[in-house]
């Protein structure tokens, strides 16, 4: 059964999703980029989004979950509006990152992996973020905010709480401003139609082979 299902993605996102799938020789290659996009819309990877991604790339929702759960950046549970990642790997540790992390936990009143009661901040202890000359390195929603001291960290949190820096720090995810605007090798609509036809044929084959589920 295809076609009738209403999209979980906004129309704009659905268009971008079609573009992404069309970039690759195999649709499954778009799985991770699509997860990033879905996360930007919903804040995290919802079950509905994983179903939608699965349908777009021709795998089961369980395969999307199984893949996504491997990756630190993909969240299958809700996270705060701002994901604050403090690197404590070697260079940052030498630069005082463990002390900063401790301070951040106390200041935000959450442990590592936790989200503040107001749903604004999720605190993460990150591995090296490749910005090791500005230590301790901190990212908010994967935007580098430069080396932080305990004092500057408190100011940063206050600024974000007050709704500042929205331009600089868009929602959690990384593809929001990454868009291919030119030279698409394949027409997204044509590729989407082709994939839909393939999915339909597959469904028909499965239905014809009897119980439909057993392999």
């Amino acid at each position: 059964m295809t076609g009738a299902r209403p999209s979980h993605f906004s129309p704009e996102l659905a268009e971008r999703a079609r573009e992404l799938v069309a970039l690759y020789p195999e649709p499954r290659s778009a799985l991770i980029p699509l997860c990033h996009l879905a996360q930007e819309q919903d804040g995290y990877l919802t079950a509905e989004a994983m179903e939608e991604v699965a349908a777009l790339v021709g795998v089961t929702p369980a395969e999307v979950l199984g893949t996504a759960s491997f990756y630190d950046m993909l969240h299958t549970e809700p996270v705060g509006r701002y994901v604050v990642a403090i690197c404590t790997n070697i260079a940052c540790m030498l630069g005082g990152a463990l002390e900063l992390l401790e301070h951040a936990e106390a200041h935000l009143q959450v442990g590592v992996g936790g989200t503040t009661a107001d749903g604004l901040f999720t605190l993460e202890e990150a591995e090296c973020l490749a910005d090791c000359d500005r230590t301790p390195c901190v990212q908010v929603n994967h935007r580098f905010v430069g080396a932080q001291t305990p004092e500057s960290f408190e100011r940063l949190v206050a600024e974000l709480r007050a709704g500042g820096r929205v331009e600089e720090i868009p929602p959690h995810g990384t593809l929001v401003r990454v868009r291919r605007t030119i030279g698409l090798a394949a027409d997204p609509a044509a590729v989407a139609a082709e994939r839909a036809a393939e999915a339909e044929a597959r469904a028909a084959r499965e239905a014809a082979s009897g119980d439909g589920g057993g392999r």
Partner: protein
Amino acid sequence: MAITDAPKIVTSRLGHPDSHTLERYLATGGYEGLRKALTMTPEAVAAEVDAASLLGRGGAGFPAGRKWAMLRKDPVTYLVVNGDESEPATFKDHLLVERDPHQLVEGVVIAAYALQVSQVFIFIRGEFALGLERVQGALNDAYAHGAVGADIFGSGFSVDVVVHPGAGAYICGEETALLESLEGKRGFPRIKPPFFPAAIGLYGQPTVVNNVETMSNLPWIVRNGGAAFAALGEGRSTGTRLFALAGHVNKPGVYELEMAKTTFRDLIYAPVLGGGVRHGRELKAFIPGGVSAPWFGPDQVDLPLGQDEVGAAGSMLGSGSVVVMDDHTCPVRASWRITKFFSRESCGQCTPCREGSGWLERIMERIETGSGREEDLDLLLDACDNIAPGLTWPPQQTTICVLGPSIPSSIGSAIKMFRDEFLVHVKDGGCPYA
């Protein structure tokens, strides 16, 4: 040894605030290498890269020209660029993707032409949100400029370039894990043989995987000739290389230096480079090539920054990262943190790596936090020996990829160099530096 006045090959534009724009790129010789390459045969372009004897900058240091030659016997199907950069304290590709994305794009198109590839993927770690924007932006502009896409500069050569984001997993820097990830799967490294990318790569097709910095050298090499590149450096270490200097120095940062001409002493102490150990302290130890590399002590600072020289001294230049630790650094804490990293990032396919990293981390933690025993040192070395038998350098491989056998490096070094300090932790029931 000295700091030479070798040209800046990959960092020449970084002084300009708009170094990432097409305008700045074109005003500073941008895309001239590509124009020149397109007037040559693909074989002639590959021959220049071979003559340059450009060593891969991703960590293993394999000559790019040789990698390409192995492939050109087969028709290569894909070129994949490795911009995963997750080796701790390595931060050079970050600079190149954010600050000079056109140079990367130009290098990529030159390589695609030499290899006669029509589809390229640039894999960039997902945490580089701005880097992803900059490279995609550069590609959009390069398409409009006619430097990427169909019939490039009217030459008849066409190539499509796709930017692909990672999603947070160190192991995806390993080239076969990267290909799995690019196929939309978990980043599990593939067994070599048979899964050498050159033979069975992306979608099962022959594939070249090269690092971002490796690619970024190509415009200069084509413009100036492979011989000019090979004239820089010493022995097998030709050209310049980016060194990412981190830790307890006054001026951490990325420095482009002529290979094998400069020493670790110059890098750490020269006023125009690292500017010396922070707070006027003494050097205790340094890691010469990423956290997978065995550590060096102060008596090794006069080694040149050359691949073979560092290899002969028992470590590696690896990813080009140098981490400096001053005399206030706890070596137990430092190697514990490195071990914790490996334990977190092990993909879990191989028992020695998955289980071994966890054990080692727990033993290190108990020593650092004061409940360790003297026997723990032997236990550590024994567990290390199970992961990399004989604790030789380079390590013996017991696992699918080299992440596993890299785990013992830091612990082995710390125990060898600072056994006394481990014993102090045990005797005093805690960290003397805490």
